[in-house]
């Protein structure tokens, strides 16, 4: 078996205030997989995501990315390997132009000059927005900003792309276009979402997180088809949608 891209063993975490968010999470994601991380509000999904690139460190347990443990001495390499796309693109895009923003990550990795320019173009082309390079992020539509946000992370050539609610606030056409793009990307994806049809459409495997533990893990069709599991953890398919 190949080395998993993500390997979490017994990850537990309590916030400094005392609120415990994670109670021993075990999770493996293998190269090439597209995995949906499902769960109700407050399940600990965001807390889990912040463990993947070392923003938070587990109180107990370990996190490894392609075999490299997430610890202070490898933080830069971990953050290159794990690309997190946050929910609000206005948080992700903070530089004056799209080009500068996409260059921010690779520049932090030490790339300069022609190599950096090529990386920026490559990332923007991957999400189909190469023509927006010199625009200011606040002049773009929401769908364009979401795509540029993904490009900012792709520019670091991550081994795994972690998307936090990628379909939120998108109109149906932008939502479908984004799905088309995500399918073409040659990268492992972990997608945190409430949008169950989107998970069904894009991810062959789903993991259900509830109250800080993994309560379901399997093929998306089976997980979403398990009515008892779904009801127990406040997950609902939209009205009229059937597996």
């Amino acid at each position, binding site marked *: 078996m190949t080395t998993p891209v993500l390997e979490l063993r017994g990850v537990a975490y309590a916030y400094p205030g005392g609120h415990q968010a994670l109670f021993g999470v075990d999770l493996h994601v293998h190269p090439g997989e597209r995995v949906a991380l499902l769960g109700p509000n407050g399940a600990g999904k965001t807390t889990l995501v*912040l463990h993947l*690139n070392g*923003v938070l460190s587990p109180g107990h347990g370990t996190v490894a990315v392609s075999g490299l443990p997430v610890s202070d001495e490898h933080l*830069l390499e971990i*953050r*290159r390997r794990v*690309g*997190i796309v*946050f929910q*609000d693109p*206005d*948080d*992700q*895009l*903070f*530089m*004056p*132009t799209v080009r*500068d923003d996409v*260059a*921010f*990550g690779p*520049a*932090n*990795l030490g790339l*300069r000059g022609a190599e*950096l320019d090529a990386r920026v173009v490559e990332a923007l082309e991957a999400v189909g927005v190469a023509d927006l390079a010199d625009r*200011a*992020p*606040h002049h773009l539509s929401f769908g364009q900003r979401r795509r540029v946000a993904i490009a*900012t*992370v792709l520019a*670091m050539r991550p081994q795994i792309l972690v998307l936090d609610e990628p379909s939120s606030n998108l109109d149906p056409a932008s939502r479908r276009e984004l799905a088309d793009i995500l399918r073409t990307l040659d990268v492992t994806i972990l997608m945190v979402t409430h949008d169950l049809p989107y998970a069904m459409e894009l991810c062959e495997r789903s993991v259900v997180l509830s109250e800080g533990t993994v309560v379901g893990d399997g093929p998306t069709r089976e997980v979403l088809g398990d009515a008892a599991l779904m009801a127990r953890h406040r997950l609902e398919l939209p009205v009229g949608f059937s597996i």
Partner: protein
Amino acid sequence: MGSGPGAHLHVEGTSRLHTVPAHAKLVGLLLFVLAVVSVPNEAALVLAALLAVAVAVLLSTRVAARHLLPRLAVETPFAVFAVVLPFVAVGPRVQLGPVSVSEAGLTAAVALLLKGTTGVVAAVAFAVTTRPRDLVRALQHLRVPDPLVLIASFMVRYVDVIGGQLRRMRVARASRGFDARSVRSWPVLAAGMGALFIRSYERGERVHLAMVSRGWSGRLPVTSPLAARPTEWLVVLGPALAAVAASVGARMVP
């Protein structure tokens, strides 16, 4: 709001001043303004000549007057102050047409008006020819500390986002019948500002998180260094050197 400063000050163009690297322009502007301010107040003719230089520079940008005039309006409060000055200042009075005004006040008012206008005209010439992004790069190139460069850069980036929040809060208040007409509505407005501050602070935390996630280590990477050719330095330093010479000259020949 929607028309935040910075985002819309720049006007696309192909003039010489548009193509000169921003750091050179910034140095030229700063020197020019400092030199103009150092000219003695009594040398009104020298100041008028320097105003003509600034106007010539502004015209050389070939930006249409309809773009320039609204940007020049920033000077209005200073102009009003300059007009009031001769009437309120003390000291010997002189007769100006039907009214009697303070002599020192009149000199100061003329100098204030000339210096202020020259400064604003020069600053507008810089602003209309420089993209916000290039201004940020220029500050970085001139070794302005990273935190200050970042604050300037984030202001350019987020002024519209925060303005949008402010507008939505105002609409939400109005939609529930709120009408700010008396002092009694101030607590509501203050609470709104407080909420906006908290939201902006939280956004700051999220932006920082996104930066850290992309390998931010506390230093702003220099991705495309700026370089100005000697001829470009000459273009921007020309007016500044003229102003320095004028200032020195005006002091030596009283």
